[in-house]
């Protein structure tokens, strides 16, 4: 389980209706929060793209047209080493990708000019860790991005 105290009290929470038109609002929020938390410009670009891809999938495959908001929070972890960005949404079904796509299979797919299937790979590649969990009817995707790139 992600440390749920990180999603509480001392951080801002954005909630958006599950519409593609809200992706820009979500990205801007992640950008401004991760800047405030001291992420580098490159890391901000990577995290905001990862969040966009994860949220695009949530909207596309899980909740589009449903009335429930997707919420997003960004906080620094307890030891001050990483930004933890959490997406939380209500959905009738759990979701955890069976296996994270590998770089080779993505390159093969792109090389064969097959459309789609890039989102989950990007999410996992652009951040340092991704955790999926479900509590009641809510799914949570937690993306962790280290403040100091290795």
């Amino acid at each position: 389980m992600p440390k749920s105290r990180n999603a509480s009290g001392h951080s801002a929470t954005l909630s958006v209706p599950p519409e593609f038109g809200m992706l820009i609002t979500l990205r801007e929020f992640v950008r401004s929060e991760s800047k405030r938390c001291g992420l580098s410009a490159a890391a901000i670009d990577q995290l905001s793209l990862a969040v966009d891809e994860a949220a695009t999938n949530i909207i596309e495959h899980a909740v589009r047209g449903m009335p429930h908001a997707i919420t997003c929070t960004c906080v620094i972890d307890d030891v001050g080493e990483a930004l933890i960005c959490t997406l939380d949404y209500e959905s009738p079904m759990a979701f955890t990708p069976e296996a994270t796509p590998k770089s080779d299979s993505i390159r093969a797919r792109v090389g064969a000019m097959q459309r789609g299937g890039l989102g989950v790979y990007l999410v996992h590649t652009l951040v340092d860790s991704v955790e999926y969990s479900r509590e009641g009817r809510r799914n949570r995707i937690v993306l962790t991005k280290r403040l100091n790139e290795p």
Partner: protein
Amino acid sequence: MATESPARFSVREVETGEPGITLIELAGELDAHTAPDFEHFLERIVREEKRSKLILDFHNLEYISSAGLGVLMGLIEEVRAHSGDMKLAALPEKIFHVLDLLGFPVVFQIVPTVREAIQQFS
């Protein structure tokens, strides 16, 4: 609800003076919300107008997600089937990074400037 900003993404054709070459300029943020506009625009050019020497000028594009990349993927084979190509020109570094991560340079001609893309077609 009138909550659309007119300015967040745009795609338009720009005159090159070179017959047979179509230059398309992208600007703003290309995501799952704006990708359908981009797709309709390109489909009209490729399917209805049967143009096949395309240069996409990325210079003013600020953001791209896989939804935008999917549009390119969806049309590249069709363009090549008409003996044409779709060249990607003037990519900002952070946009090149995303394409590079996914192996796009293997499939797409990525060219530093629009001028060079035109020369390659001529």
